[in-house]
C-alpha cells in the first residue's frame, strides 16, 4: 500500500471504506522519435475508496485523461499497475463504466438501442433489456426520446444518454472523462446536480476528470491536482464541504477551496498556455 497518500487524507474519509481502485506507480511513456520519450505519466500513485468521489484536475497535457483510460483498461501502462478490488486489471470491463466528453454514443442506434447496448453485449434477453432500458431512460428523464436518433438531441441530452448507457451495464466504478466539458454552462449545472443526486443515492466510486475547478470542488470528496511534463500528482485536496452540495456553490468555503486549487495549478497552466 502507498502510505503517503493515505496519510495525506483527512481522518474521516480514510477510516471507513476499503480501497476500491489502487494505482501503483503508473507510468506512461510515448515514443516521440529523435527527441526521446515523452513521459505522459510519471509514477502516479493514487487510491480511491469504495463510494468515494475523486476528481482529477490539471492543465492540458498533465495526463489526467491518459490515467483514466489506463484504469478503464483501454490503454496499457508502460510501467506500474492498477488494482481494482485488489485484483490487477486486464483490459476493459463493464464493471468499470466509462463516459467520454464527446458524445461517444452510437449515432446509428436510437436512444433506447444505445442504452440497451451493454445488456445486449452481455446476452441479456430482449424482454429484460426493455425493462432495463426503460428504467434507466426514466432515471435520466429521457423516456420520451426513446425512439429518437442522437443527432436529433441536444448535447446535454446526449451526455445523459451516455450516462444511462453506462448505468445499464451496472458498473461499480464510474470513470468520467470531462463528461460535461462540451456543454453550455446552464446544461452543465443541471447535469452536475443530477449526477450529485445519483451519486448520493447509490454511492458508487467515481473518478472524474475535468478542467473545471468549480466542478471538481462541487462534486468531489477529494480533488487530485496534477502537473504536466511529466504528468505527476502535485497535491490532493480534501473537500470537506457538507452534502448535499447543490447550495454550496455560493458559500465562502467553496471559494477558498477553489482559490487554493487554482493557485496550485496556476503556474503550470500559464506555462502550458504561454
Amino acid at each position, binding site marked *: 500500500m502507498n502510505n503517503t497518500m493515505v496519510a495525506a487524507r483527512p481522518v474521516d474519509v480514510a477510516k471507513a471504506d476499503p480501497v476500491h481502485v489502487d494505482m501503483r506507480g503508473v507510468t506512461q511513456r510515448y515514443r516521440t522519435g529523435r527527441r526521446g520519450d515523452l513521459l505522459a505519466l510519471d509514477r502516479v500513485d493514487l487510491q480511491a475508496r469504495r463510494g468515494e468521489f475523486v476528481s482529477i484536475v490539471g492543465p492540458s497535457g498533465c495526463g489526467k485523461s491518459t490515467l483514466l*483510460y489506463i484504469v*478503464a*483498461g*483501454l490503454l496499457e501502462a508502460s510501467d506500474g499497475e492498477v488494482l481494482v478490488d485488489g485484483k490487477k486489471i486486464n*483490459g*476493459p*470491463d*463493464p464493471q*468499470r*463504466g*466509462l463516459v*467520454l466528453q*464527446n458524445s*461517444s*454514443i*452510437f*449515432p*446509428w*442506434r436510437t436512444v433506447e438501442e444505445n442504452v440497451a*447496448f*451493454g445488456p*445486449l*453485449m*452481455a446476452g441479456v434477453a430482449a424482454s429484460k433489456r426493455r425493462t432495463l432500458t426503460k428504467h434507466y431512460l426514466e432515471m435520466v428523464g429521457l423516456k420520451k426520446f426513446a425512439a429518437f*436518433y*442522437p*443527432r436529433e438531441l441536444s448535447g446535454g441530452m446526449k451526455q445523459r444518454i*451516455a450516462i444511462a*448507457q*453506462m448505468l445499464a*451495464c451496472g458498473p461499480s466504478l464510474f*470513470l468520467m472523462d470531462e463528461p460535461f466539458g462540451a456543454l453550455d454552462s446552464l446544461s452543465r449545472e443541471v447535469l452536475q446536480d443530477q449526477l450529485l443526486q445519483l451519486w448520493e443515492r447509490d454511492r458508487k466510486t467515481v473518478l472524474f476528470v475535468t478542467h473545471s475547478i468549480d466542478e471538481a470542488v462541487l462534486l468531489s470528496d477529494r480533488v487530485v491536482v496534477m502537473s504536466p511534463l511529466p504528468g505527476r500528482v502535485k497535491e490532493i485536496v480534501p473537500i470537506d464541504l457538507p452534502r448535499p452540495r447543490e447550495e454550496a456553490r455560493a458559500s465562502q468555503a467553496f471559494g477558498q477551496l477553489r482559490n487554493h486549487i487554482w493557485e496550485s495549478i496556476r503556474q503550470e497552466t500559464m506555462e502550458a498556455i504561454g
Partner: protein
Amino acid sequence: MTMLTASRRTDVAETDGRPSAGGPRPARTISDRIGWSRFAAVTRYYPVLLIFVLWEILSQLHLLDPMFMPPLEDVARTFYKEVFVTHELLEHLRMSMMRAGAGLGLAAVVGIGIGILMGRVRAIEGFLDPLISALFPTPKLALFPLIMIFLGIDDASKIALIFLGCFFPITINTYAGVKNVDKFFIWNARTKGANSRQLVRYVIIPASLPFVFAGLRVATSTAFLLIVASELIAANDGLGYLIMFAERSFDPALMWCGILMIAGMGFTVDRLLLALGARLFAWQDS
C-alpha cells in the same frame, strides 16, 4: 376510407367527446405533401425532356442525318416493337443485367469481406495494401483479352471482368471506412463489454456502412461500363451486342433503343441506390 374515418370518429367521440389530434386528417396532408414532392422530383428532369423535343423538331426539319440520328418517333416505334411485341430488347437487357449483377454481387461479398479484414487485421493489411494500391489504377478492360483466354468468350469471362472492376472500389472504400471509425466509438463499445466479434458487428460495420455504400455506387457505374464494353467486344446477346449488331446492320433506331435502355437502367439503379442510402443512413448528420 370514408367509412373507416367515420367509424373512427364515433369511437373517439364516445371516449372523450372530441376528435383526437392524432386522427386521420394530418395523415392525409402528409401523403399530399409526399405526392407533391414526388411530382417536383420528376419535373426537375425537364431538361432531358427538352432534349428529346429538340431531337424530334430537328429531325422533322431534316437537320439531322437519319443514319446517325433517326427521328425520335422511329426510335419509339422500334422500342415499342422490341419491348411489347418481340420482347427481344428485354431478353438482351436480362442477359446484361444478369452478368452485371453476378459480377457486382460477387465483388460486393468478397470486397466488403476483404475490406473489413484489411481494416482490422494488421498482417492482412500489410500484405494486401501494396498489392491493391498497385493493381487499382490498372484499367481492368486491358485484362479482358487475357481473361477470355482463360475463361472463354461466354458469360464467365464477362462476369470475371466486372468482378475485377467492381472489387477494387468496394474493397478500398470498405477499408477506408473501417479505418475511419472513431476511436471513441470503439472504446465506448469495449467498456460496455463488446468482444471483438460483437465490435465488428455492432460498431465497425454500421459505422463504416456509408463508406461501403459510396463504394457500391462507384462499382455500379463501373459494372455498367464494363458490361457494355465486354459485350461490344465479344457476345451473342446483351445490350452491348445489340448496339453493335444494330450499327452493323444499319439500324440506327435499334441502336438508339439499346443506348437509351442502358442509360435508363444506369440512371434508375443509381437512383434506387441513393434512395436506399437515404433510408439506411437516416441517423447521419446531413
